[in-house]
């Protein structure tokens, strides 16, 4: 085994990339859950985003159009969930699971003719001289625009939830939909918008996998990232900064185990492959000692009956 084969600069740059799909998906779900809705369909919306983004990027040759299509695809699928849970008042858990299964199947159908194709590459952002700084340059200033967008969105969501009126209303709806309704806020509309935001974010996360991280299309290629995103939201106690931390932890260990595999460490591959999941969950369980921060109306069906 040869640990010196692991290049620390490439390692850090790599884990930033590995964490980005998770950041997008979990951030979207965080907003959805803050509004009091539990959408278990993250995985399905991600894979739909992955194929919509991949197909559009291949057809048009523009990765940015691909990401736009991914967001639209994810949001469109989430609209189905919003219809089921907000209009027909279906059970949220069952609807979310159905959304995942539907997304996995439908994306496989859409993607049949795209297997084995290479998508157009999204260029790195040109930071000019910053890129040439040793170590920092390749680690921080050699990525595509979507990676920076992911971090910017964490900040934006944090500011929105903590400092703006819109964020206060969103939290209020998630805290007690009856009280919010009594004050005259449109619970169903606010939740539908939150669900669509979550869908769009999940779509972006999925497209980041198929267009940048892997980059190719295979069936079921999101491989459980959506589920990790769901767990991440809970263990991050619905706080954006902890979510970012958890995503980097997960991305870091994923990257590390890949590098260790490459370096030929004498541990069975299966143990290495499961390590990111185990370690992320352990750390976040310890962090999430205060459970009281869960939105009080999470997963409850709202009906304005009176």
């Amino acid at each position: 085994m040869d640990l010196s084969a692991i290049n620390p600069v490439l390692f850090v740059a790599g884990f930033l990339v590995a964490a980005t799909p998770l950041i997008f998906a979990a951030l979207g779900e965080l907003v959805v859950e803050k509004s009091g809705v539990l959408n278990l369909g993250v995985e399905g919306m991600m894979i739909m985003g992955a194929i919509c983004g991949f197909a559009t990027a291949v057809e048009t040759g523009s990765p940015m159009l691909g990401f736009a299509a991914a967001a639209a695809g994810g949001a469109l699928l989430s609209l189905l969930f919003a219809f089921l849970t907000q209009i027909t008042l279906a059970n949220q858990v069952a609807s979310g699971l159905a959304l995942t299964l539907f997304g996995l199947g439908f994306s496989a159908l859409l993607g049949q003719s795209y297997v084995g194709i290479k998508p157009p590459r999204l260029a790195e952002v040109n930071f000019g001289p910053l890129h040439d700084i040793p170590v920092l340059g390749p680690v921080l200033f050699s990525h595509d625009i979507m990676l920076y967008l992911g971090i910017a969105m964490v900040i934006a969501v944090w500011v929105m939830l903590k400092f703006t009126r819109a964020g206060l209303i969103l939290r209020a709806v998630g805290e007690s939909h009856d009280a919010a309704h009594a004050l005259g806020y449109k619970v169903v509309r606010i939740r539908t918008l939150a669900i669509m935001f979550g869908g769009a974010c999940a779509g972006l996360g999925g497209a980041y996998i198929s267009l940048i991280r892997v980059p190719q299309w295979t069936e079921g290629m999101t491989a459980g990232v959506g589920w990790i995103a769901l767990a991440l939201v809970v263990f991050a106690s619905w706080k954006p900064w902890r979510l970012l931390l958890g995503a980097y932890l997960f991305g870091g260990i994923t990257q590390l185990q890949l590098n260790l595999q490459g370096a030929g460490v004498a541990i069975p591959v299966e143990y290495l492959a499961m390590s990111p999941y185990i370690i992320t969950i352990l750390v976040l369980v310890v962090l999430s000692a205060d459970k009281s921060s869960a939105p009080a109306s999470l997963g409850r069906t709202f009906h304005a009956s009176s």
Partner: protein
Amino acid sequence: MTAPLLALSGLTKAYPGVVANDDVSLTIAPGEVHALLGENGAGKSTLVKMIYGLVKPDSGTMQMHGAAFHPSEPRAARAAGVGMVFQHFSLFDALSVAENIALGMENAPKLRALSKQIRDVSEAYGLPLSPDRIVGDLSAGERQRVEIIRCLLQDPKLLIMDEPTSVLTPQEVEILFKTLRKLSAEGTAILYISHKLEEIRSLCDSATILRLGKVVGHCTPSETSARDMAEMMVGSILKTPLRAGKTPGAVLLDIQGLNAKSPSAFGMPLRDISVQVRAGEVLGIGGVAGNGQDELLAALSGEQPSGAGMIRFKDHDISQLGPIARRALGILAAPEERLGHAAAPDMTLTENAMLTGAVRENLERGGMLDWPAARRFAERIIKEFDVRTPGPGNAARALSGGNLQKFVIGREVLQRPEVLVVNQPTWGVDASAAAAIRQALLDLAENGAAVIVISQDLDELMEISDRFSALNEGRLSEPRPAQGLTVDEIGLMMGGAHGMEVAHV
């Protein structure tokens, strides 16, 4: 007479199967304190919801300052100067006082400026409140102050208050009334919904009485006796529960140093509760909601086992027994929450009768359920407690709150308990049904059972208790004979005015 602030004429609102408001008209002058009286289901809530824009009337008109007034949503009503203090459901536990208030305002200022406004208004009206506290930690009285201040910050012309005093200690009621009188003197009209008639007599200038959605009368409360008003509300003559003088028997339930954690995050732990209850006695336990009532019921019913030796029944230590074992011994309980706790909402009355009656009514033999017997038991409850329902096959959810309450209490009373613990036995029940339930509890005690009544209705407790004690922050005061207790003494047992110390710092 001055021009009316608000004039309603011919308001009608029908829901499938029921006319909630039928041709209701009333006028309120600026600065007038107007009471809206009626039993549950009389249509008071629907009427104020129409004024507040939560419900649209089917027909009829509303005028504000002589101009047509059709609020399509609460926002429009608030803009027109209508503020409403809700009975429940309008605060967010996990948010701070300032955030809660910001949510109810149209153009909320920045939180820091708002906090200052909150402090100013709370001082001006004698309603002590700290803007940074989390609402989940506040007492019921303090929560209500949050709602009142939320309304006051918008400078309302009309303040609607829906049953504001049902959760307050007598001292807190005094503070509230001072505030309301001050507002009224400044020209704010108040529409006051309550079923506490003595309060209305001391506070209100005029009253409108609703029965089954129709206006059945107007009166001047200060010149009308409470009994007359009650009879106008009910439409029949009221019976006062009777009790014979009696001497209590042996100690049935002996609670020593009961401590218990609360299962919920915003709940109240029980702290060192000691009390003895004798056969033939009614022990009334008062106190503001959220001071350990639910936890005490859970500890007595067996839902929440307690430490060894804390609860004894006759000569058995029952502290660790679960609800079924306690039921077998004769210790029965009826919790406050009707739907979901005392009864399973989507199950039929027969099934609900089976759920608690199986042990004592022999509805179960060798694991097999005796449905015909359960049905007969349910029918007996319906008959003896005058539960208005088409039959025992109806789902519990389909019953009105008062009828379900009669069923839930009746189900326990008919199982011949030796100890019965009830929480809020007449909550949301109309006056005549409440009298019937109280009579049943008194009869039960008469026949040698020990009855513990946990309630927030002090009049009810004074009416039926032999001894009275109060829960305050999970502690139970020393029980005292109910006869001769004054309102002030009761108020002090309940902990006085919550949060007043904040004001003096």
